[in-house]
């Protein structure tokens, strides 16, 4: 095991996984509490469409992933704000449209490109030093902004209208959150892939939700679970030669069900049922 850890590629993989796991699980707290779960799924598929267009045209794939991701979340936020359409409907339309574009762009490529599929399914073991630098820079940026605006983000997750009425610039903070979700998805594409990044945003925060009644503790638990499952998932992937994305997500799912079973909230619900 220690031999494996001496390899550069393994050290890069573990570092990338830890950063992505921590980032996804922290932003996941706000996504889960604000009810934006489906936005994460839609954004990841939109970002993948950007990657495929990048490879098709010979443009930087991550840059196009950011453009597609941001366009999707901003259109979704704008539509919800105007009250023209429910959030799940608008994101559903954009989700499928961008996925169709992604498939179209792959179809237009003249040859098979394995790197594109790496972004779809995740390939953390092949993260390059340059990609690690991009992941590191975006992780610091997103976590920094989350920390800077954490009190406002918690408030809009609790009740956006009450936050606005209390003097918090809630609308701007909501769009900031959507922007950070899009950036998080792009950061995570190479590590866990477009399909599974959604799980990394959702599962650690949902697991922590089972274990505490406090916002601060919820964030701490979620980050711990996210980092632990990502690192352990990469190690499992390396030792048993299984794909890294599924290893991380299935480990996170296992912990989620254990948390549901031992949740203090569940015990309280059972007590309430028996007392009636």
């Amino acid at each position: 095991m220690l031999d494996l850890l001496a390899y550069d590629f393994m050290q890069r993989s573990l570092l990338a996984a830890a950063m992505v796991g921590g980032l996804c699980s922290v932003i996941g707290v706000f996504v889960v509490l604000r009810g934006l779960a489906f936005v994460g799924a839609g954004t990841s598929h939109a970002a993948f469409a950007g990657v495929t267009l990048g490879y098709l045209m010979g443009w930087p794939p991550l840059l196009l992933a950011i453009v597609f991701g941001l366009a999707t979340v901003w259109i979704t936020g704008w539509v919800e704000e105007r009250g023209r359409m429910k959030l799940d409907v608008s994101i559903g339309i954009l989700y499928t449209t961008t996925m169709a574009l992604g498939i179209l762009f792959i179809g237009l490529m003249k040859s098979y490109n394995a790197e594109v599929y790496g972004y779809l399914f995740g390939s953390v073991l092949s993260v390059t030093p340059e990609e690690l630098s991009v992941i590191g820079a975006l992780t610091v940026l997103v976590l920094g902004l989350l920390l800077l605006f954490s009190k406002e983000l918690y408030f809009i997750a609790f009740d956006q209208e009450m936050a606005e009425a209390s003097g918090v610039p809630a609308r701007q903070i909501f769009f900031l959150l959507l922007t950070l979700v899009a950036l998080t998805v792009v950061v995570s594409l190479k590590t866990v892939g477009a399909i599974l990044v959604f799980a990394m945003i959702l599962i650690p925060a949902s697991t922590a939700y089972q274990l505490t009644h406090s916002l601060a503790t919820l964030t701490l638990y979620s980050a711990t679970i996210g980092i632990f499952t990502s690192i352990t998932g990469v190690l499992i992937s390396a030792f048993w030669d299984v794909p890294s994305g599924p290893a991380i997500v299935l480990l996170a799912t296992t912990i989620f069900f254990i948390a549901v079973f031992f949740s203090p909230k569940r015990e309280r619900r059972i007590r309430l049922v028996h007392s009636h």
Partner: protein
Amino acid sequence: MSDPREPIIRFDHASFGFPGLIALKDISLAIYEGEFIGIIGPNGSGKTTLCRAVLGLLAPVEGHLHIFDCACDELRCHHRAKIGYLPQKGVVDRNFPVTVLETVMMGRYGALGLFKRPGRKDRDIAQQALAQVGMDSHKDHSLGQLSGGQQQRVFIARALAQQPKVLILDEPTTGLDITAQHNVIELVQQLHDELKLTILLITHDINMIRSRVDRLVLLKTRLFAAAPPAEVLKPEILHQVYGKDLVITEKDLVIVEDYHHHH
């Protein structure tokens, strides 16, 4: 008779809603500092719209609304922080993973502004607000573990932590048992008396508030009355709004389906 005081909230022929769907039409109303106002009217009469306008969440489509001498669409964040708000029950997820103290601390965020972290002073203000509503011993409890009446107290404390000049309460007694309803209204009265807050209280329970408020504002898309309760609670005025004859007795208010048959 004109009032020599300057109103802190002034509606001037203001209408609210969307073109083709006006929720409130041609409202002219002045609210003065320290007043306790009850806002009544049937469902869909525009009560919540009126309050959302005062919160700066809605601008008039016609006319003007001034709050603290500012046009409501120019209301800055620090002005909004002076208005405490208790939304209708059901608007907020009461099972949100948050402690009582964390909930009340949110009342400080608007006044603090961006980039500043809450400090010891803010924590003290939040704990004092909890003490004012009698919930200081529950500060570390989960919000979801509390009863409906206790949760309303916590939300009132959250509004008080803003150190507001105006407190808006949207149907604060809905869904509570009779004792809890009475306790919440008693608390609101006490806050008005002790802190000299301007209070706008939306309710359907006229009996519960009619002896406590300075004025009742009676709405049904238009403003039908804004006067002391004795002047508003007259059968001929109430009939116009509720479409039923209402008999006011010495102690109670009874809705009578067929007033003439009743006599």
